[in-house]
């Protein structure tokens, strides 16, 4: 015999309304290990949506600390966090456990480039909440090599994009890049190859576009984990918030890109 039926029990079930969506596999969602890279604007929204959707195992990677200008877009950050220069990953992890006490939120406060390959291996899905091409190339190539689906979000003002990279057959992030991406990525490095970050443009951002992009990312993560692969974005979701239009674009797999041309 299971638990006895109690009057009003459904109103106590946090995920009752989600359970009414037939294809959502909430058991798989609760067990999935999510690697979320970047805990800024998109990261805060993604983290919130993940946990409210039923994800319970989230690893958050970000080396940076909270600053005042984050507060217009980041639910989990406070002025006190900014004053005390708290690490973004730790603040988000703490915020998630406040949202749902049974969440296992692990904060990693190192650079994503310093993550071992095993960090990708032990997770089921990767969500990229980054702010530069170089980090995207790093995360994208590692996730692809480990055969993990990567859902990458990006924005600039009222424009945003979500790309779903599905190894082994799908296009990867680098398949959609060209010489303009190489140019801005190279500006982050000195001639010695050491990162110097002298080009870190402050990109326009506001919360409404952030929310839309994060929501699409987490919705795709729910589909991946629930096995709803036929409904996944085939490549890229492009959103223009100024005109309130969105569309799906095809990014063809490029056999000559750095990821696909690498010998296995």
């Amino acid at each position, binding site marked *: 015999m299971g638990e006895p039926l109690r009057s009003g029990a459904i109103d106590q079930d946090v995920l009752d309304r989600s359970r009414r969506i037939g294809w959502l596999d909430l058991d798989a969602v609760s067990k999935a290990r999510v690697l979320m890279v*970047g*805990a*800024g*604007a*998109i*990261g805060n929204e993604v983290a919130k949506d993940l946990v409210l959707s039923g994800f319970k195992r989230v690893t958050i990677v*970000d080396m*940076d600390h909270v600053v005042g*200008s*984050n507060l217009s877009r980041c639910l989990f950050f406070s002025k006190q966090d900014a004053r005390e220069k708290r690490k973004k990953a730790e603040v988000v992890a703490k915020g998630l456990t406040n949202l749902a006490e049974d969440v296992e939120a692990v904060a990693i406060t190192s650079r994503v480039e310093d993550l071992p390959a095993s960090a990708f291996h032990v997770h089921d899905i990767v969500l990229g*909440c*980054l*702010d*530069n*091409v170089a980090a995207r190339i790093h995360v994208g190539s590692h996730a692809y090599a480990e055969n993990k689906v990567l859902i990458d*979000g*990006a*924005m*600039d003002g009222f*424009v*945003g*994009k979500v790309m779903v990279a599905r190894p082994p057959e799908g296009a990867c992030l680098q*398949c*959609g*890049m*060209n*010489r*303009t*991406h190489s*140019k*801005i990525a190279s500006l982050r490095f000195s001639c010695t190859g050491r990162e110097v970050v002298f080009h*870190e*443009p*402050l*990109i*326009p*951002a506001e919360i409404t576009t*952030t929310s839309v*992009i994060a929501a699409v990312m987490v919705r795709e993560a729910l589909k991946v984990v629930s096995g709803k692969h036929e409904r996944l974005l085939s*490549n*890229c979701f*492009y959103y223009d918030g100024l005109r309130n239009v969105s*569309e*799906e*674009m*095809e*990014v*063809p797999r*490029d056999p*000559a890109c750095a990821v696909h041309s690498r010998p296995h």
Partner: protein
Amino acid sequence: MKNAETGATVEMELENENTVDEVIESAATFWSKDMGAYVLRKGKKVLRGGSNLGESGIRADDVLELIPDPEGGRL
């Protein structure tokens, strides 16, 4: 060529041998675009940077669109 951000258009004289990278750079320079990432698309398809227009199946009178590829999200 269409500028997705402004709706402006310009006619470009191109050869099959011109690469997508070259077209992006020419259009971005013409419209004095800020430094950043851009992609070129035909319809719903994003064109590969290193491929030439012939390989990409581009023909005379096709309309290509230059769109910004957003980079931000963490700061």
